[in-house]
């Protein structure tokens, strides 16, 4: 975030914050309502994750000012995100690679 901002700029920011607030409330409502549709696990997970990622992006971009942040911060986050994704990918694939788990998940209609 730039160090110096005029009062007008801050006021404009405040309007954005309130709009983001509204969007977050709507998305919360949507994700709860969708969960009552009784979808099977895979699509339900996809929808819930999709909405959560949008909400999280709104918070990170606007409340945490990531939209106008410096490169050094992005690098730190990219690194953390990459390792996080790697961890999930390898945890899940190591499970799927065990035959009995894969068969079980197949039975449950997930994989």
């Amino acid at each position: 975030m730039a160090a110096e901002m005029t009062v007008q700029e801050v006021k404009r920011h405040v309007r954005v914050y309130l709009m983001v607030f509204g969007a977050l409330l709507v998305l919360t409502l949507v994700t709860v309502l969708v969960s009552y549709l009784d979808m099977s696990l895979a699509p339900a997970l996809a929808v819930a994750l999709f909405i959560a990622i949008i909400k999280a992006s709104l918070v990170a971009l606007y409340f945490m000012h990531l939209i106008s942040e410096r490169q050094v911060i992005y690098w730190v986050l990219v690194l953390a995100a990459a390792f996080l994704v790697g961890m999930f990918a390898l945890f899940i694939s190591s499970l799927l690679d065990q035959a009995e788990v894969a068969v079980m998940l197949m039975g449950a209609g997930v994989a």
Partner: protein
Amino acid sequence: MADHHAAPHEAHAEHKAGFWRTYWFSTDHKVIGIQYGITALAFLLFGFILMLLMRWQLASPGVEIPFLGALTPEMYNQFGAMHGTIMVFLGIVPLAVGAFGNYVVPLQIGAIDMAFPRLNMASYHFFFWGGVVMLASFFVPQGAAKAGWTSYPPLADIETMGQTMWLWGMVLLITSSLLGAINFITTIVQLRTEGMTYFRMPFFVWAQFVTAFLLLLAFPPLEAAGFLQLADRLLDTSFFLPSGLVTADGPLDVSGGGSPLLWQHLFWFLAHPEVYVLILPAMGIVAEVLANNTRKPLWGFRLMVYSLIFLGIMSFIVWAHHMFITGMGTAISAFFQVTTMIISIPSVIILSALIITLRGGSIRFTVPMLFALGFLPMFGIGGLTGLPLGLAPTDIPLHDTYYVIGHFHYVVAPGTILALFAGIYYWFPKMTGRTLNDTLGKVHFWGTIISMNCIFFPMLIQGLAGVSRRLFDGGLAYSFSEPVLEYNMFMSIAAAALFVFQVPFIVNLIMSLRKDRNVKKANYWDATTLDWSATPLTPVAHGNFETVPHVYRDPYEYSVPGSGVPFLSQDMAPQDDGPSEATIEVVA
């Protein structure tokens, strides 16, 4: 960069702080570094003594130890688990990162202190109390943790109270490391002095930089695992307990459905990068000492830095090579074998670059140089013996044998510890203002390296013969270990010899208190880096420099042809063209 010109020596003018403020709750990175150093050396000694007691038992099973009596299997297991924990988390990491990192990094980048001095103090105190909790666990009913330093469940889940203490101790140590890592990265990114671009940072700083990222991002999953194991132990959950588990006391009364493998994944997600946390600072120290004593620049400096970064990133995706025997599927096993083979490449590049650096140098065989030279082949053996463990077909028969013990001790004992000794001998004159005796240093070096090899090489042979690790009797009960059983006595004698050869080191430290050992010269080793060239004669005050140095050149400009001087320190201004324009390269 106006901030940088703030007079760093204002500290002198402040009213004199009391004893506690000066030595125990200090915010000066140099004092904190020395605090870390002393505490870590004490823990190293303690961990070593635990091992000596175990080696006594292995050499002569059941024979009573003077003053202590015969070791029981429970005690043996406690000593084994705590030896590993103490050496890794309370000895080497605090010494390599906490002590040398804290003391040297701000000096080498021209910073007046760490970015967050009070956080730095907090890191030390978290570490200290983590150590106290670990030590205190020896005195609770049934003693300290005895499920190995890896604390594998289900065993660790149903272990005695010492295991809970171990987990709380780890939470404190992890907190300490995380705060330290945040501080190091911020310091290196934000407080480099004018002209100190990333590629002008000495290799040691680079090593600490990458290490800090490993600590920052690999430790939290272990903390998560620690919380889960604490829940298993204190709230009777069964995250790591499968259904239908039966112990000597009958079936376990838990809901089950958990997975012991989950712990192994989370644990090794940390513990493999941790291996590089142990080795990278050591490589950094060796690089500094080598450049300084060969009187020439490091060969392939940029290549070494790129290798370091690549090593750091790769270290996050190789962890499951510790888990080949867990019934892992073939595809995922192949993935981890490939990444493991790939990660050996940057290590080999760094080691080769260090060896090539020696070529054509006029080497000064100082004591730190001897230790640094000792590191090279020892780390080489450690690395090469690791290759068979990175491939599943050879790992499966070797897993959990003494071969593994031999391999990783070659990396961390004759490897990292020799490098840490090199660091102690190298920076001692700056830290204390006193010099160490050369003859005692040489006795210490030769005694240490020879006895270490006599301890660890036979382990490789025993392991190939199939002797399992963690055996209370050292393999006595198994007929197949008979041909290699006699090595046990030999290794134990070598361990005792190693202990004896630490005496000259301790004597050397004590003798340096003598007044005639004063250092007369601020740049004792004629070094190019700011830690020597820009700091005043010890004692260096809080604030480090009389005037904050500017950096004009690369880190290791020794014996530059045509310069007319033996070396050009980083803060030496070019003579004809005046103060250089090339100060901060914008990296943002």
